């Protein structure tokens, strides 16, 4: 009965939270930790303003700089979609900025958009202006004289035919649109160019293209080059007259601003390669000198457009019709209209979009896979700026304390970085000379390092030995099943590729094992020497990769018709479009040998005997469409027969969320998607179950992150401060109870301490929630940040997080008291009193020591000012605040009528060698020194008060011309006090400009210094520290006596 009640309570609370969220969970914030980011794909500047640029990122929103790139800040985070395809600033009104969403430089792992947005306040706020179904916007052009006339180049999703592809035109600022150029449902608009001197003249490049999981097809009769002479209302296809014969693929077009008769077209023709037995047409760049009437082949250099679907952009200098910039994997520059090209200083790797200032051709900005690059000297020197926009494929964590976060970054490698860094010495005196890095500060980008793997796939730290990290992929991606094993102690990386045969350029049907771009590499939860990997088979190693065995048959459809070369006119086979592969592998933590496998052709397989026998369960998933990618399977932590899975159909033109649950080993499945939005970016990537609470699920989708308290019965957003970026991966770090996520556009984020979610039942009554044990990290330092690092991560606030639940908001603030084991209140905090879960952080610090203030300014420095109370902090001497040592504490909450308490265990850093006796000895001396400093502060206050009193007497006597003798006596006494003060603190300095160097140390400085020495690290005090402290006690006593003599009091 009691169990029933508890269960009912848990369910009740879960329902309550489910009903209240997300507002009730709003204080559970996400924090970005890094690593440095990569891909931007759209850029725009402000004509004539070399300092202001907008950077459209692949899947991380829009960033803006107003200082030439020194600092960038996100300006699009409030919007529901983060992938940017095009940016434009109106020439006639620089406050009008347009953003087209959806990345236009296409690969199989790019995000999607949902319309065009307009800002009329230079990016401060944005408004959706329609075209939500267009998927991707490759270009927006604005009439240079009329910002109300706008044209948008819409690609469509590229995953299937749709009527929303083509060129849209609006003459009312985007309130209404007309589709004025629509070739057919298979053809995208790939480029749009407007004559800046005559906006009636436009050229449009059209591109027949489709992407599926099994391949891309570029080229066909839909592709072409079109011209309008009436502002985009009507269009004419340009053919012949020097243009290449069909078929065409992607088409790019650019008009020379300095001579609009000069037009360039970069056309995907196949570069003369033989494809399917047919020779294609050579040629890359054509030019016209008569406004498109006739054309001339200028170049056959296929490097100008590289992998066409992902690049293909040429731009003409604003003041030289023959000066061209080619964006691609390789960057080219031409001064003769493309006849000859040179590889000069590249703005970055994998260049995409380029903006050239129409008023000053020296100012150029380039969007590339390294970030954004800006030049002010016509591309001689580039300023490369990275942004916090890393595209992470998955996330894993090790078991170190504090733990590390791992994952593979698009256009990077596999990465390892800290979940938190740095620490302040006890007393929190970080900074200044030799100070440690304070907790709560940034995580510098230098704290991240490569761990050997490639840009896709998985990085897996050994769950037992934190020095070993496995990664899939290589510098060339995960082609061929490359697996690396790094030993962090030696730095040695061993490639233990499952089948070390080169597969670059091969179609899936041509390789022995089909290892897809991000094939799974997963540990067995029972044996850290057992790893599984997936091709069309499940592979396993038990000996560190020395040998691999196959433990399954081909688990896929093995449809050879969908294993052919990918790319169409420009073949592009790097393993990304390998179909019929195992995409997800997971062994149940409840039953050894129970292994789930999901394929990217839509199959779900299960073995319950370690691979001897496999069962295809796909038919048991109701409503699951064909060919979806089973993107992950999450075996339950609590029941062997329970599992959850996600299926991703966006590459087969299905963007709905597909999430399923089974409780009977896959015999039956239930679709669990209640509460999930059916949006353009609604497709699901990964579902996980919390390891501490059964049925608590987290889900990452292309548009955000969701939580379910009832095993998927209902979902609700857990977005809070997280931008609506794609969430590709999630994991709960078991010991820390942190939820870590990999976003494909804004790096890794952590929601610290999700125990309020895990322990929802405890929140049934108002009051404190159980507090997770907190580690007191000290002195570990960290990497060095440098300059204006736009990519540095954030540490959590220092100390222990304290959560309390309030069913409804309470007026005023909550008071939280920290009580030590002796019953003394060592710290009082104030916290919010909002409805739901409230959180405050205790930084292990006690209430501050006595303030050290003076009431005078240096006699030689009248420029020094006093505050409204007639005081100022004593220079070079600061109050001592103790960090409470590890031990048992009690937290007490008082808010409204609610009173509650919870125990808090403060743990020492597990790396610390200190014993309890060491901590006790250290803390005892720290307390003694603090007491001395407090006495010192009181003495100084008395001295200063007496000086003020003497001055007051002097003031009133100044009105009396017969008081010179009294005033001289006052001055003499004051001088004695000044002399005494010279022994207490540096009373000639201001504390500015490092003028502490100009006077010898005083008693205050010596106490201050000794405390810093004693409080550094977890160590007992040295013998000399004890000895020096005894001397300082004597000095303090002597100065007290001296003051008593001067003042005529019995000061003690």
């Amino acid at each position, binding site marked *: 009965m009691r169990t029933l009640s508890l269960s009912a309570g848990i369910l009740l609370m879960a329902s309550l939270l489910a009903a209240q969220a997300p507002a009730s969970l709003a204080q559970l914030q996400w924090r970005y930790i890094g690593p440095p980011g990569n891909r931007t794909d759209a850029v725009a500047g402000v004509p004539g303003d070399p300092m202001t640029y907008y950077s459209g990122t692949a899947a991380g929103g829009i960033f803006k700089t107003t200082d030439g790139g020194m600092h960038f800040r996100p300006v699009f985070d409030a919007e529901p979609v983060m992938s940017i395809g095009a940016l434009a600033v109106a020439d006639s009104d620089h406050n009008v900025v347009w953003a087209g969403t959806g990345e236009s430089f296409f690969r199989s792992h790019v995000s999607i958009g949902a319309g065009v947005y307009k800002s009329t306040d230079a990016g401060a706020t944005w408004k959706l202006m329609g075209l939500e179904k267009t998927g991707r916007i490759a270009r927006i052009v604005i009439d240079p004289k009329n910002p109300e006339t706008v044209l948008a180049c819409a690609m469509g999703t590229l995953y299937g035919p749709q009527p929303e592809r083509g060129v849209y035109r609006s003459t009312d600022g985007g309130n209404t649109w007309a589709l004025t150029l629509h070739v057919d449902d298979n053809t995208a608009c790939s480029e749009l160019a407007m004559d800046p001197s005559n906006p009636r003249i436009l050229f449009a490049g059209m591109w027949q293209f489709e992407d599926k999981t099994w391949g891309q097809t570029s080229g066909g009769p839909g592709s072409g080059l079109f011209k309008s002479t009436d502002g985009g209302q009507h269009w004419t296809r340009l053919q012949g007259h020097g243009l290449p014969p069909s078929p065409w693929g992607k088409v790019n077009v650019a008009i020379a601003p300095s001579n609009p008769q000069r037009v360039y077209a970069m056309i995907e023709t196949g570069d003369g390669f033989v494809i399917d037995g047919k020779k294609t047409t050579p040629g890359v760049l054509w030019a016209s000198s008569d406004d498109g009437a006739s054309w001339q082949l200028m170049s056959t250099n296929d490097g100008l457009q590289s992998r066409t679907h992902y690049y293909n952009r040429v731009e003409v200098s604003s003041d030289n019709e023959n000066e061209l910039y080619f964006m691609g994997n390789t960057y080219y520059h031409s001064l003769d209209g493309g006849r000859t090209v040179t590889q000069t200083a590249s703005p970055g790797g994998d260049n995409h979009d380029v903006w050239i200032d129409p008023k000053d051709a020296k100012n150029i900005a380039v969007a590339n896979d390294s970030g954004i690059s800006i030049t002010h000297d016509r591309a001689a020197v580039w300023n490369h700026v990275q942004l916090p926009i890393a595209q992470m494929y998955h996330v894993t964590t090790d078991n170190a304390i504090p733990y590390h976060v791992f994952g593979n970054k698009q256009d990077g490698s596999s990465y390892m970085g800290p979940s938190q860094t740095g620490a302040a010495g006890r007393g929190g005196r970080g900074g200044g000379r030799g100070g440690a890095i304070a907790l709560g500060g940034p995580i510098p980008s230098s704290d991240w390092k490569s761990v050997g793997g490639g840009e896709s796939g998985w990085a897996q730290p050994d769950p037992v030995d934190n020095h070993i990290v496995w990664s899939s992929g290589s510098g060339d991606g995960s082609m061929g099943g490359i697996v690396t094993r790094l030993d962090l102690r030696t730095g040695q990386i061993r490639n233990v590729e499952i089948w070390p045969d080169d597969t670059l350029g091969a179609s899936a049907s041509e390789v022995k094992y089909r290892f897809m771009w991000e094939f799974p590499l997963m540990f067995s939860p029972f044996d850290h020497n057992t790893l599984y990997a997936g091709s069309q088979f499940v592979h396993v190693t038990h000996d560190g990769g020395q040998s691999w065995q196959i433990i399954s048959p081909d688990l896929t459809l093995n449809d050879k018709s969908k294993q052919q070369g990918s790319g169409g006119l420009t073949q592009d086979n790097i393993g990304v479009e390998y179909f019929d592969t195992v995409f997800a592998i997971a062994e149940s933590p409840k039953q050894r040998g129970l292994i789930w496998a999901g394929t990217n052709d839509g199959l779900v397989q299960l073995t319950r005997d370690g691979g001897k026998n496999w069962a295809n369960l796909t038919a048991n998933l109701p409503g699951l469409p064909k060919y979806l990618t089973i993107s992950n399977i999450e075996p339950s932590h609590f029941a062997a027969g329970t599992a959850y899975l996600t299926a991703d159909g966006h590459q087969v033109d299905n963007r709905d969320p597909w999430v399923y649950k089974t409780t009977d080993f896959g015999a039956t499945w239930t679709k669990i998607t209640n509460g999930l939005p059916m949006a353009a970016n609604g497709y699901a990537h990964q579902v996980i179950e919390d390891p501490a609470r059964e049925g608590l699920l987290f889900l990452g989708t292309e548009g955000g992150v969701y939580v379910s308290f009832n095993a998927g019965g209902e979902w609700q957003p857990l977005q809070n401060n997280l931008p609506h970026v794609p969430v590709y991966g999630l994991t709960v770090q078991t010991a820390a109870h942190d939820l870590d996520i990999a976003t494909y556009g804004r790096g890794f984020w952590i929601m610290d301490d999700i125990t309020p979610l895990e322990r929802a039942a405890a929140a049934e009554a108002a009051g404190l929630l159980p507090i997770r044990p907190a580690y007191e990290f000290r002195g570990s330092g960290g990497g060095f940040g440098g300059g204006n690092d736009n990519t540095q991560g954030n540490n959590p606030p220092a100390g222990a997080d304290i959560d309390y639940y309030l069913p409804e908001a309470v007026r005023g603030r909550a008071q939280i008291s920290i009580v030590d084991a002796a019953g003394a209140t060592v710290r009082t905090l104030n916290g919010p009193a909002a409805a739901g879960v409230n959180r405050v952080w205790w930084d292990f610090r006690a209430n501050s020591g*006595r303030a050290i203030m003076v*009431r*005078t*300014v240096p*006699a030689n420095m*009248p420029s020094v000012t*006093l505050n409204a109370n*007639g005081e100022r902090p004593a220079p070079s001497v600061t109050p001592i605040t103790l960090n409470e040592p590890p031990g048992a504490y009690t937290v007490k909450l008082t808010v409204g009528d609610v009173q509650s308490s919870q125990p808090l265990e403060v743990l020492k850093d597990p790396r610390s060698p200190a014993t309890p006796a060491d901590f006790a000895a250290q803390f005892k001396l720290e307390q003694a020194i603090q007491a001395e400093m407090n006495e010192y502060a*009181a003495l100084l*206050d*008395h001295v200063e*008060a007496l*000086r*003020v*009193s003497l*001055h*007051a*007497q*002097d*003031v*009133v*006597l*100044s*009105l*009396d*011309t*017969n008081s010179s003798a009294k005033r001289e006596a006052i001055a003499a006494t004051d001088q004695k006090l000044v002399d005494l003060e010279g022994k207490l603190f540096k009373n000639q300095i201001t504390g500015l400009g490092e003028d502490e160097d100009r006077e010898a140390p005083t008693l205050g400085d010596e106490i201050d210094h000794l405390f810093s020495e004693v409080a550094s690290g977890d160590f007992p005090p040295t013998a000399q520290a004890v000895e020096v402290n005894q001397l300082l006690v004597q000095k303090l006593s002597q100065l007290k006596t001296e003051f008593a003599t001067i003042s005529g009091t019995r*000061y*003690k």
Partner: protein
Amino acid sequence: MKRLVLVLFLGLVPLIGQSVDAAIGIGTAAAGHVSGGFWPSFAATAMFNQHVGVAGELALRTSSPRNAYYALDYRPKMMDVNLALRPTRHEWTPELQAGYGVVMVEPGNDLCVESPSFPCTRLPTERKSAAHLGVLAKTYLNHGAFLRLEFHQLIGKNIDHPSRFAISMGYTFGRK
């Protein structure tokens, strides 16, 4: 309160049969350690006839005087009551005042130290009285509104001859 003051002044006009000046001003003072700062002033003059009347004025510092080394929460004040004489009526009408004046230095609060062994102490107060001389000149901006320049001087034994300068604006009720 403003209405009450207005009624009182308007009531004085028929009572004494002549005019009443009300003025507010701003100035500064030279008075030992309390010198400097902004000193707002409030003044009134009631004339028995066109040449003779009585006058009074209160001036006080807006902020505590601070010298280079200390800050004290003092609010010095200067007050005077006088016989007023207006010898002539020209574009700039001079006014001579002679009477009794006081300069006061009083602490705004006690001096306290955060210590149980050191109770808050009252800082010293000084109040010096002396003869007051004032020289003023006013000009009318229209029928009743005027602009006035002021110089005030305290003269007495053992006093450092505090002086005050001000410019004030006011209105004459009952001007003929």
